[in-house]
């Protein structure tokens, strides 16, 4: 058991993990002060016959200190977090050159929509692959996330991506994978009976592999029509 996060394979994973470690250090210090302080007091000031406790109603100075320090600390954490939040989920955070994919959840599967040759969704040459999202490495990817029935949540632990899919809405999610490989997609929002097995895969290809895969699929989809 450890406090480290599993490897992150997207461009913003490092930023998210960095804030996590900053908070880990800060809360770790507070944890040690309070827990060992309590333990020390229990031992040091345990009851002894004939002794009276020190009679005091408090100290203004102490109150100011332990109000100010947490206040400053949380402002620092808040400001740091705000920057990364905007970068990952802010309005129009997705880079302009992002490649577009569709992803539609339903009980209990993820359907990935590919643009086909024209690079645009909603056209005749779109094709759908069930539970398989194939993307190129080192290329920003914009996913149009939707759902056909209830709320699901698109979660790829290795990419540090999580976003609920809302009925009646299409939500933009973006990421840029930094390493090729196959990563699991999980549903993170209780969505019914099969919630626990609503599993799919993101396959991150090298640029060449992706082009090859895309060409094959496009041809297959065209042949199937």
């Amino acid at each position, binding site marked *: 058991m450890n406090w480290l996060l599993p490897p992150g394979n997207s461009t913003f994973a490092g930023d998210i993990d960095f804030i996590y470690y900053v908070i880990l250090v800060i809360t770790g210090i507070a944890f040690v002060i309070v827990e060992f302080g309590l333990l020390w007091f229990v031992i040091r000031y345990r009851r002894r016959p004939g002794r009276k406790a020190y009679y005091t*109603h408090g100290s203004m100075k102490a109150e100011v200190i332990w109000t100010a320090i947490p206040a400053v600390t949380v402002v620092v954490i808040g400001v740091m977090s705000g920057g990364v939040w905007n970068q990952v989920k802010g309005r129009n955070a997705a880079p302009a050159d992002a490649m577009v994919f569709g992803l539609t959840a339903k009980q209990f599967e993820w359907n990935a929509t590919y643009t086909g040759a024209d690079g645009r969704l909603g056209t005749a040459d779109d094709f759908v692959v069930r539970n398989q999202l194939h993307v190129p490495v080192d290329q920003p990817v914009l996913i149009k996330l939707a759902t056909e029935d209830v709320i699901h949540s698109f979660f790829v632990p290795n990419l540090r991506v999580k976003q609920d899919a809302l009925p009646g809405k299409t939500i933009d999610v973006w990421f840029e994978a930094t390493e090729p490989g196959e990563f699991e997609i999980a549903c993170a929002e209780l969505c019914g009976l099969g919630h626990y097995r609503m599993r799919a895969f993101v396959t991150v290809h090298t640029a060449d592999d992706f082009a090859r895969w895309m060409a094959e699929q496009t041809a297959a989809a065209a042949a199937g029509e």
Partner: protein
Amino acid sequence: MATSAPPIDAVHAGHGHELSFIRKYIFSTDHKIIGVQFLLLSLVGLFLGGMMAMAIRWQLGFPEGSMPLGGIFPETMVSGGVMLPEFYNSLVTMHGTFMVFFAVMPLLVGVFGNYLIPLKIGAEDMAFPRINMWSFWVAVIGTVIMMAGFWVEGGHSQAGWTQYAPLSADPQWTGVATGQQLWLLSIAVLGLSSILGATNYITTVVNLRAPGMTWFRLPLSIWSLFITAILVVLAIPILSGAAIMLFFDQTIGTSFFNATAGGQPILWQHLFWYFGHPEVYILILPAMGMVSEVIANGSRKPIFGYHSMVYAIIAIAFLGWIVWGHHMFQSGMNPTLGMTFMISTMFIAVPSAIKVFNWMGTMWRGNLTLHVPMLNAIAFVAMFVIGGLSGVYMASTPVDIYIHDTYFIVAHIHYVLFGGSLFALFAAITFWYPKMFGRMMSEAWGRVHFALTFVFFNLTFWPMHYLGLQGHMRRIYDPSQYEFLQHLSGTNRFVTISAFLLMVSQVIFAANFILSWFYGKKASENPWNDNGLEWSTPSPPPHGNWPDVPTVYRGPYEFSSPEVEEDFLPQHQKLPGDLEPEAAGRGS
């Protein structure tokens, strides 16, 4: 003086009369009896919620294994000894529901609100004793409706205690219709009970304080229950309204939360968390208040920074009321709103830190009497800190992207609600048990129970942080479905075994509670040498609490005062220099 004032309510005309058994113990209007009734009802709720947790843990620890006692369930819940996913989802829903609405909330607010408020402020009873009785019996009706859900066609609700629409709004998504509707009905009924109770608490604290019991002489437990009652009045009606809308979506074809007909699923989340976050503070503020009483008593020292403690309670309640959006960072809500909610959420750390450091300040240079209530109260502080600190991770929006809806949040909520509220309740029950039942609980068994609970609690919930950091989602029936969770099966099994041992340890508490009622050492009027007004009347107090309402001369935490020989100085004890409240310019 007391005899000159007319009775507060006609019910008190029954003073001194012999009441029938039914009026005395069943349909009683005595706040102390109602408190004990709530105690027994919610301890049953706590036990049921705990047993549901055991079934959940069995499934997570041993996903393929045949469940012990699985045979007692019908085939629609446990088939061939193996729990079905639909039953698992029901259990997850009902564990949360029972622990929040039928265990911790009634234990804190129903039990101690009722028992302590009149006794600690020096009132003969609540302002509205009959409404108080109704508040309990309406809660019983709510409990019966909720329990009924287990026996109806299709089983109980499977939508999680948060009941996110549209999963909860249309039977086609979970296959549950009646159970789902009973859930919503029960919550609306329970809401009425809470509002009746809160109305009573607020009126009583404002209008019925004994002479000399000024606002800043109120014990912190009363302050926190008073602020909690205000939160109840502000939060619960929103849940009732939302539950009724969802109920109509289920039954008469409205479409408030149905996107295909123009409704808005996210509206449910806003309404639910607008209630839900104040609810979190409803579940912790009274615990903080009662722990303050016990820590001052156990340290034999005045509360460090009484005024900042009061302001911290008010600040927590206020901030808690405007931060609901932090449950919805990943919900598709406007990201700019996410920023606002993150900042307001972060600031809750400040009053929380003030409280923790003031508790430590109270213990500093004290003369620590480590009786069982004190041990549990110290454990409250130690565990609440962990729950508070783990909250910072979720408040940080980017980190929340990763840990949202994982076991990290499960660990967090249990450190606050079990490590926090429940340890505070163990402290409170053991502390006020002698007053309630006139007998002491066993000190030795109390220590054993404390030690085992403390150890197994941490062994159960500490590893959940790790599970969450590895990405383990919450509310999943079978983690072995995922490649990236395979290496966690050993941790899951360890947590499950710890949880079983934690549950078994509670047998000691149950036995101690029941046996002490009959065989415990007789309690004196003031067994803990405390200062509160409740300790100035026999254990248990008679109907009406005091022959004459006591007069208050000082604050509630005058321990180890240099003015007297003993290390405590009760609020009602008059010293030579003390002025009568009227003479001091207070009172009427």
